[in-house]
């Protein structure tokens, strides 16, 4: 697993040097949140939709971050070099997913803060525990699916439009689960805490399925004939 950790560290170092997340993705995600509020133009409506909007903004931003994470691999055929060093593809998968998780986690913290500040959402007491659990499990799912589908379209023509077309339908169950559970954590009237925890269970199963799928699929995905 050391290999996975060093791959993650490599990705995060590149990110830190270029500051793409800070310079482009965070502003983009915040802009999306503001635009949602402008489109809905009603405070009670925005408050009710807050959880779903946070995760929708996360989904869109994930597409950007994933694209970036694989462009750095395919440029100069870096990933081939990596795999030529007899690194097991599953480790590359988990390494890249871990780096993606760290970046997305930073992003979701910003977005939840934005929901509190901009949308007037309140979180307190035991709801904080639920919120943190949801954020971690949903972000893991996003990172795993993002890494898997990022590898599917890596190096392909038109990958920037293919990635959302392929990944977003697959992320739909995650969007539903994360939104409902976050709604419970935000203290919605329509969904209680127990129900919120049940959705977290779904997110857990989802993450395990895609973790397994990704580690199995990464070998045929990264293989090259040349």
């Amino acid at each position, binding site marked *: 697993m050391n290999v996975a950790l060093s791959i993650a560290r490599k990705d995060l170092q590149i990110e830190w040097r270029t500051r793409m997340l800070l310079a482009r993705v965070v502003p983009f995600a915040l802009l999306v949140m503001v635009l949602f509020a402008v489109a809905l133009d009603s405070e009670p409506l925005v408050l009710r939709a807050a959880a779903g909007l946070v995760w929708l903004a996360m989904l869109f931003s994930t597409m950007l971050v994933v694209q970036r994470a694989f462009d750095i691999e395919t440029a100069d055929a870096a990933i081939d070099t990596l795999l030529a060093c007899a690194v097991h593809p599953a480790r590359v998968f988990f390494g890249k997913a871990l780096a993606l998780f760290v970046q997305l986690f930073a992003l979701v913290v910003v977005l939840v803060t934005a929901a509190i500040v901009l949308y007037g959402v309140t979180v307190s007491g035991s709801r904080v525990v639920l919120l943190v659990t949801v954020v971690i499990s949903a972000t893991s799912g996003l990172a795993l699916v993002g890494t898997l589908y990022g590898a599917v379209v890596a190096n*392909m*023509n038109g990958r920037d439009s293919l990635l959302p077309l392929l990944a977003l*339908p*697959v992320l739909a*169950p995650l969007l539903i689960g994360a939104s409902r559970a976050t709604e419970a954590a935000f203290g919605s009237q329509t969904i209680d805490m127990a129900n919120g925890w049940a959705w977290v269970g779904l997110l857990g199963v989802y993450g395990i*399925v895609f973790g397994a*799928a990704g580690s199995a699929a990464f070998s*045929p*995905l990264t293989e090259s004939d040349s």
Partner: protein
Amino acid sequence: MSIYTATAAVPGAAARTGTRTTRVIGVLALVTTAFVVVSAFFLTPADSVQGDSVRIMYAHVPTAWVAYLAFITTAVASGFSLARRHRTLGFDRVAGASGEVGVLFMAMTLLTGSLWGRLTWGTFWQWDPRLTTTLFLFITYVGYLAVRRIDTDPRQRARRSAVIALLAVLEIPLVHFSVVLWRSLHQEASVLSPDGDVRLDDLMLFTLFAGVAAFTLIFAWLVIHRQRLTALADIRQTVGLDAAIALRRSETSGVVK
């Protein structure tokens, strides 16, 4: 498309993509489809609950069945294409042909379903788990076909689309269990559909099964032909390339002389 691709007719190329087997399948498909249409419109009675709108079901249920069959076929062929490396492209062609036909049938499932829903529920669409997950399933395979159209190394494309197909097929159980999972309204509504508690008379049931048989035959016919079609395109590319190389060779030897 390669610049070496031949476009002119070549001698000794009389056979098309049909064979005796596909002709038998084709004739059987036409006959059964004709029976289903006649039975759906004229022989079967109107349903006691749904009225005449049940006649849509004889098209809706078979298209849904074939769409699932097609997606499962795509997944199985994709699995083989990954496992049998020396025959990757052959299995990949079957997977692709089946995926195309599946997307068409799923589109028809959604269309006929929404027309039926308009008559029975009063709305074209309901945001209910089964419908929503079916829609996502459809979009997933539209994406699968989009990846297949990308002009890149065929073996790499085959591997990547195989992975997508194997992941996409996981959504089929999700469609099925979504109803249980989300405990929604569709369960009650499906009482109205032929797989529910409504007692269907024998002819209605027979027509439904005949519809499934007819559309499965159509599926088989289409997949066999379309798979051969892509095989032809691939072969033409190689044949064209061989011809171009031969031409260059003769040119060079001409210069030497």
